[in-house]
């Protein structure tokens, strides 16, 4: 296991560097001058010399590659640069906006994971019953509906109609309920389809037939035999889902007016605030990387027979 962790960490280093390079270049090569954009936004008149002076101040006068290495070195010192629009350090802005996004994503992830397991198992095990068919149709509907539509629908019913929630303002934890439900429903529907497909596929395996023939209870067959087999592909899927949830919360945060990372990123796109965008891309890449890393480790731990395959039959 230690050897696996070491190998996997080593092989992750080039990926991380690649991520920083691509993330930096995508933003760096975007057309539009951030200094001019910001000055125009502020409505001040400016001269070419003033723009040039500001460029030098923000280091934008240097060639792109040189800027990349400066940015990379700063990164090691946990300096993510300074936001052009607000003049504040990016790290500070991240610290301010991350808690809401993290809370939203983690809550939505945990609840969609639990819901998807229940939905997937029920629809797979009791196929061709009315309950199973209705749940399957519901999941198909939730998969097809865009999250912004679901968000607006929930707002219309529960905030505007019933008045249970605040509309478009963030004050306390209660205001996270609707966004979490929106993210959970869509995500759980997608995840439950994989759970269902995997259970149906595994149920036709010879070893499940043996488990049935041995006279094991339904609980033992599902709990020990089926779930042990479906977990590895599900864990990989969950890792991707977590990253997508974090990315997907951009739209949801904007609809529900939550001051999270997504809102910060969208604002940064509008203002060509390169430093924030570069940091956001890096952060998203890092989340995907870590989630996949965690999934790989869990799968390695869950499938010990793979260890024997690594070194031949012992």
């Amino acid at each position, binding site marked *: 296991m230690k050897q696996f962790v070491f190998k996997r960490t080593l092989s992750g280093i080039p990926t991380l560097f690649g991520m920083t390079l691509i993330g930096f270049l995508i933003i760096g090569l975007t057309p539009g001058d951030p200094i001019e954009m910001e000055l125009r936004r502020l409505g001040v008149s400016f001269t070419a010399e003033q723009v040039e002076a500001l460029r030098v101040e923000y280091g934008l006068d240097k060639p792109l590659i040189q800027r990349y290495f400066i940015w990379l070195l700063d990164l090691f010192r946990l300096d993510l640069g300074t936001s052009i629009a607000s003049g504040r350090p990016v790290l500070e802005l991240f610290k301010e906006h991350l808690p809401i996004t993290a809370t939203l994503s983690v809550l939505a992830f945990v609840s969609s994971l639990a819901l998807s397991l229940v939905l997937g198992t029920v629809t797979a095990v009791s196929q061709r019953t009315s309950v199973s068919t209705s749940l399957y149709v519901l999941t198909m509907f939730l998969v097809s509906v865009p999250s912004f539509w679901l968000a607006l629908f929930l707002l219309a019913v529960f905030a505007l109609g019933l008045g249970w929630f605040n509309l478009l303002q963030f004050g306390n934890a209660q205001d996270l309920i609707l966004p979490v439900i929106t993210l959970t429903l869509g995500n759980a529907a997608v995840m439950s389809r994989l759970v269902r497909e995997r259970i149906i596929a595994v149920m036709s395996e*010879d070893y499940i*037939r043996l488990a*049935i023939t*041995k*006279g094991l209870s339904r609980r033992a067959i599902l709990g020990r*035999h089926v779930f042990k*087999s479906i977990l590895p592909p599900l864990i990989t899927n969950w890792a991707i889902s977590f990253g997508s949830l974090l990315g997907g919360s951009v739209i949801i945060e904007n609809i529900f007016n939550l001051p999270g990372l997504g809102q910060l990123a969208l604002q940064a796109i509008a203002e060509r605030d390169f430093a924030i965008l570069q940091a956001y891309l890096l952060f998203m890449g890092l989340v995907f990387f870590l989630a996949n890393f965690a999934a790989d480790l869990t799968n390695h731990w869950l499938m010990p027979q793979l260890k*024997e395959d690594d070194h031949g039959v012992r």
Partner: protein
Amino acid sequence: MVDIPLLQVQNLTIANSTQNNESLVEGVSFSLSAGQRLGLIGKSGCGKSLTCHAITGALRAPLTTSSGSIRFQGQDLLAMPFAEKQRIRGTGIFCIFQSPGSALHPSLTIATQLLETAGNVSLFGQDAQQTISQALEAVSLPQHCLKQYPNALSGGMKQRVMMAMALILKPTVLIADEPTTGLDVITEHETLEALNVVQQETGSALLFVSHDLRIVRQTCTSVLVMDAGQLVDACDLNQPIAPDCHHATAEITRAMERLQL
């Protein structure tokens, strides 16, 4: 030996529900008494394995038993709810399937798979370990196999793990569905020996399915012949095959004779 049918299959028909209920096995009837060793033989695809799957409840959708009955000690298995069937499966009827490579759970150690089998006959802790150890010895498997995962075992060893399961469960009816398919001659011999040990130790009635008359002769006292989804002949293996037998039986006998030459 009292001749009471332990297992009675009557008019069993297996159909494919997605293809206009086309019958794959039709009107199969036979019975198995305590201690009997009955062979079921026929060409590949004639419906032998499907018949076994129907008895053990391992038919996969869209295949279903469209008519007939399968009675175990007088109780109709097809009319029972799942939980009740599970009480009969294992200790009442157990089946050794033809694909040892995929029959064992790949992510569970042999010990876990045998312990859970022992748990099904209410053997736990020290008792379970002792029974497992004796079962492994009876089928000539080394004790260190317990710590391994199925991928570390050969096909013959996996098949013997299945035999060990049968030894632990001591089923009233043991079905062996082509247990030697895909095994080399030496492993085939070892597997049959192990099966012999299992049958002697458990006293189970045996339904031995094969396409190989030579192996059936070694294992069974009588044989049923299937052809195109139907039972077409029944022969006593202590007697020479009658010259007026069904053409499917004659075909198998002729092929075996030619191979032996």
